[in-house]
């Protein structure tokens, strides 16, 4: 046998091993995933004809099984208790109780992304396409406005930049479009950094909101106050991401990059709007979420579980400092309804 022939045979063996190994793995994963999707999720459910009412938390359920990813609701005074599970799966969710906004991913050969508005019975009343992976969503307190943030990932040929697209819609009314088009004001002066990116809206009322505006070139990650009437974003403060206004409107919880080096480590911090005082909370882990207020004293956020891909828990931490604890196991993207 010539050396060349030996090499050809060697290569054929490599191909054979790879095809058998990868094919076998793929098949076993396919079977496992099919089983997992039909296995009942291991969570307590409320009886089928019961709906959770009153003060409640709506979230994305991440318990593996047939209900994975579905929107669910638990009573605020029994967060670990039985869940009402909605017939719709969402990546991010926010709700006022009467109205829910749901950002979802439609898997397929061409994966698409969508925002849906649901009524009190979880029935979609309106939907529109999103340009990329869902990141954040918020409704205004009266439920008239919805803000969505999605990642806009270019194709891998040009994946040099991450960017976000943040849109504000009036439900059944006008479309305010991409807030990147709003005038960005620093001390009243208009600036237009080329690489500006906006994300993480939180509404104060039906015309005022807060959001994050970042320009890496300028080295700023600003908290901005937006005005829908004048279409402006005014810089309030530097070093604030994903703001969340407290129910009484006096404080803003946000994630703050506390890493000294080039890396990123987000801690939760609370800003007193009137005094400008900032408190970094005790949570030591990296929190990459838009915090939600359970009440005026408690903050909620999601954290992925170690070693369990796709599973996360909703944690609670006192807004004035204290130890974090799991509030809802196997949950993500909490939204609080106060009735």
């Amino acid at each position, binding site marked *: 046998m010539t050396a060349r022939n030996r090499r050809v045979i060697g*290569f054929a063996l490599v191909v054979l091993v*790879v095809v058998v190994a*990868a094919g076998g793995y793929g098949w076993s994963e*396919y079977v496992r995933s099919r089983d*997992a999707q039909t296995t009942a999720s291991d969570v307590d459910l409320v009886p089928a004809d019961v709906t959770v009412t009153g003060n409640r938390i709506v979230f994305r359920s991440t318990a593996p099984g047939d209900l994975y990813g579905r929107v669910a609701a638990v009573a605020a005074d029994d967060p670990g208790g039985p869940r009402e599970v909605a017939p719709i799966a969402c990546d991010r969710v926010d709700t006022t109780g009467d109205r829910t906004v749901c950002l979802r991913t439609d898997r397929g050969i061409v994966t698409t992304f969508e925002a849906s508005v649901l009524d009190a019975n979880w029935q979609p009343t309106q939907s529109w396409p999103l*340009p990329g992976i869902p990141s954040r969503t918020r409704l205004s307190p009266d439920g008239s406005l919805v803000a969505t943030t999605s990642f806009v990932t270019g194709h891998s040929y040009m994946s040099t930049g*991450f960017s976000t697209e943040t849109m504000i819609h009036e439900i059944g009314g006008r479309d305010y479009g991409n807030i990147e088009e709003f005038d960005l004001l620093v001390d009243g002066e208009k600036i237009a950094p080329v690489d500006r990116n906006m994300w993480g809206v939180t509404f104060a009322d039906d015309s005022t909101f807060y959001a994050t505006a970042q320009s890496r070139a300028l080295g700023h990650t600003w908290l901005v106050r937006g005005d829908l009437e004048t279409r402006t974003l005014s810089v309030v403060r530097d070093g604030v991401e994903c703001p969340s206004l407290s129910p009484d409107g006096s404080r803003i919880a946000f994630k703050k990059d506390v890493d000294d080096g080039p890396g990123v480590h987000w801690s939760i911090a609370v800003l007193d709007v009137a005094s400008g005082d900032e408190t970094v909370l005790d949570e030591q882990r990296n929190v990459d979420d838009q915090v939600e207020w359970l009440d005026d004293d408690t903050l909620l956020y999601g954290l992925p579980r170690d070693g369990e*891909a796709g599973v996360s828990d909703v944690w609670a931490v006192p807004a004035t400092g204290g130890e974090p604890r799991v509030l809802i196991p196997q949950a993500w993207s909490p939204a609080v309804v106060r009735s």
Partner: protein
Amino acid sequence: MYITLRDRPKAGQQSPPRTKGKVSSVVVTLGVVSLMTDISSEAVAAILPLYVTAALGLTTIAYGFIDGLMQGASALVRIAGGWAADRGDHPKWVAVVGYGLSMVTRAGLLIASGFAAITALVAIDRVGKGIRTAPRDAMITAASDPAHLGRSFGVHRTLDTIGAALGPLLAFVILWAIPDGYTTVFVLSLGCAVIGFALLALLVPDVRPRRRAAAEPAEPGEPAEPGEPAEKPAGRPFSWRSVAEPRLRRLLIVSGVLGLLTIGDGFIYLALQSRDGFATQWFPLLYVGTNVAYLALAIPVGRLADRVGRARVLVLGHLALLAAYLCAGSATGMAGLTVATLVLLGVFYAATDGVLAALAGQLADTSVRAAAIGTAQTVVAVTRMIAAAAFGVLWYGLGRSPAMLLVAALLAVAVPVCFLALRGLDSARPVPGGVPA
């Protein structure tokens, strides 16, 4: 006149041989290596944002920044890869290191959890890509008949682009069948990387361009220079001075100037989008359109470059870019204009990407060929990055249409100047029986 070992054009033949079999098997094999490797890397790249956000529960905020940084580093590593290939006269083994490094990162993805580990792996993958590109292109040059270099690169880039198109498709098919099948995608990616690596390591001959040139001064790939003695010191050691020799320097400068006026597809698509207002979700389709045009045209345009001159095609290919700017910059839009823009971008890539490597490989002395190809590609990559950054400023300063038209006007001035600057480079290579350059 020079003598080739294979693919020798018969005297009096009016055009280069057209049969597919004439493309060196080494080139086709390297093309398949790239195809497998591109399936491997593009499959992962396509689902990585989804994996990081959906499975790991993180945002991709830091990702883009590091990615941009590594693209810059990758461009510089390319020169080093070329240098190592020339210096040791074993381009294959340098390429093996580059492909091997990327393969190892695929295995790493199976055990990595956490954002930092994944970013590190993506970074190492990019370094691997930087290392392998120049030696691989030098091998394509060494294995090809100099008269058909453009076609050889066309064949390679076509296979490469097919892989880049198949990767994301396969990845999304897997995720569609297995909703949480990220690991399966990583396994597919590792499998393709292993096959590509094995194909390179086992079946691509260890071509030693410098030693071969020293043994037979007129071997294929050694540019015969009219007016220069045939016994060019082909066995001579690596020297940066050879990379900076006048003709190559002219090519590098012209590439740099044209690179500074190449603003990147992203902005052209953005211009189309902001004019026509179609949803951003169609963005990936624009890339697909450009890629389809590119892979359909890479071989014909490569052949054309072989016939009429590579420097000419390289420079005149920028006229397609100019036309794309005008289409994207025009005030009113139609669907037809959008399609035309994508086809023009495809023409531009077909006329520049492989052709630049072919031209640099043709002009460079055998002793510095990989380094010369790597340097030319780095110049283009770095100047295009600068162009993209600068164009962003122009866009917000002048507005979409004026900014586009300004760059188009500058390009309209640059193309004839560059055309004149590269005059004579094509005649550095005799065109057997073809249209005289």
